[in-house]
């Protein structure tokens, strides 16, 4: 008698950002190809993952509902919702599910959110900033859209390793912080290198008529950092953690304003 059911092949890969391996399982080979292309350079070994997502690839729905991003937690289970995806994640079991169409953007958003949740509990964060390594130390260049993150990344000389031109990954380690490369890109559309280095400074970007670095008061440093943090969770406890993490950061890492004209000489001030 012939088999009435056939086992669907489960495909998987591991995306390791910030040293956190996230396994993604799917039954859709085309979606797996999308992920392999999107996260090239950030694909980890097939060993044990810290987080595991089963992705259900659904048919497109038009128009995509514009409902914003909602990240809430109830009874130890996170719910992540936006117009283009629906996800759940339970940290205790390390497991989660994502429903989305076959595109790289939705899972990218889910990964960003999940990493902010993981980092918030460890004193780290994702920030709207470019970051790069020079002479074994990493530097963050923070600012809102148009402040010059992509420009300063584009101007980096060959001895600089670019970690990201858009979203920096900062993890607390011992008495300091470490910046990691991310695949989260801005206008440069170039993935960062998957490497890390101890963080030496945070520069708040401003474009001006000369290149210079100016100290800023601690209060302004904390406010500016908070304004540039990525955080989505509607969760009072995590909001408090993130708030105190920002103050902890500015007490340990020098924060200055970097005013620059858009040419490569600005890098003479860095590193």
């Amino acid at each position, binding site marked *: 008698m012939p088999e009435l059911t056939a086992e669907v092949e489960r495909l998987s890969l591991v995306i390791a950002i910030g040293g956190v391996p996230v396994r993604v399982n799917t039954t859709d080979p085309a979606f797996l190809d999308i992920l392999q292309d999107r996260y090239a350079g950030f694909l980890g070994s097939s060993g044990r993952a810290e987080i595991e997502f089963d992705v259900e690839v659904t048919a497109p729905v038009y128009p995509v509902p514009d409902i914003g991003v909602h990240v809430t937690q109830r009874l130890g289970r996170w719910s992540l919702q936006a117009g283009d995806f629906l996800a759940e994640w339970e940290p205790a079991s390390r497991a989660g599910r994502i429903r989305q169409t076959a595109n790289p953007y939705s899972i990218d958003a889910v990964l960003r959110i999940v990493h902010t949740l993981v980092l918030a509990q460890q004193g780290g964060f994702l920030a709207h900033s470019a970051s790069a390594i020079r002479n074994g130390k990493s530097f963050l260049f923070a600012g809102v859209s148009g402040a010059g993150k992509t420009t300063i990344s584009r101007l980096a000389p060959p001895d600089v390793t670019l970690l990201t031109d858009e979203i920096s990954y900062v993890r607390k380690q011992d008495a300091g912080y470490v910046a990691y490369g991310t695949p989260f890109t801005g206008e440069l559309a170039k993935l960062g290198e998957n490497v890390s280095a101890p963080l030496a400074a945070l520069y708040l970007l401003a474009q001006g008529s000369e290149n210079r670095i100016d100290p800023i008061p601690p*209060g302004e440093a904390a406010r500016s950092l908070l304004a540039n943090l990525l955080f989505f969770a509607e969760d009072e406890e995590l909001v*408090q953690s993130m708030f105190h993490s920002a103050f902890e950061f500015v007490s340990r890492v020098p924060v200055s304003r970097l005013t620059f004209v858009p040419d490569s000489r600005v890098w003479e001030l860095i590193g």
Partner: protein
Amino acid sequence: MSRLYVARNPRVAARSLDGEMMIMSGRDSTLFTLNKTATILWQSADGATPLDEIVEHRICQEFEVEPAEALHDAETLARELASHDIIQISEEPIPQPSPGAGEAR
């Protein structure tokens, strides 16, 4: 005339840095930087001390202002802070959950 009591909301995060008091709402992550008067009000908002006593003993001691005018301004400020859920206001003393909760670290 009824007295007004004010208490820090223990569900907001607060830090003082170089004399600047910053507060973040746990509800919507809005960040507030308090001026000197608001900082005194926040630090004195223990739920047990009436606002008029805070004004008399803390605000009027710090600034050269008429007590009646200072109390009026403090009530306006207290209601403004309460509208953002930074403090609670009541015509009765407000019990506090535990010592230290919500205070600046």
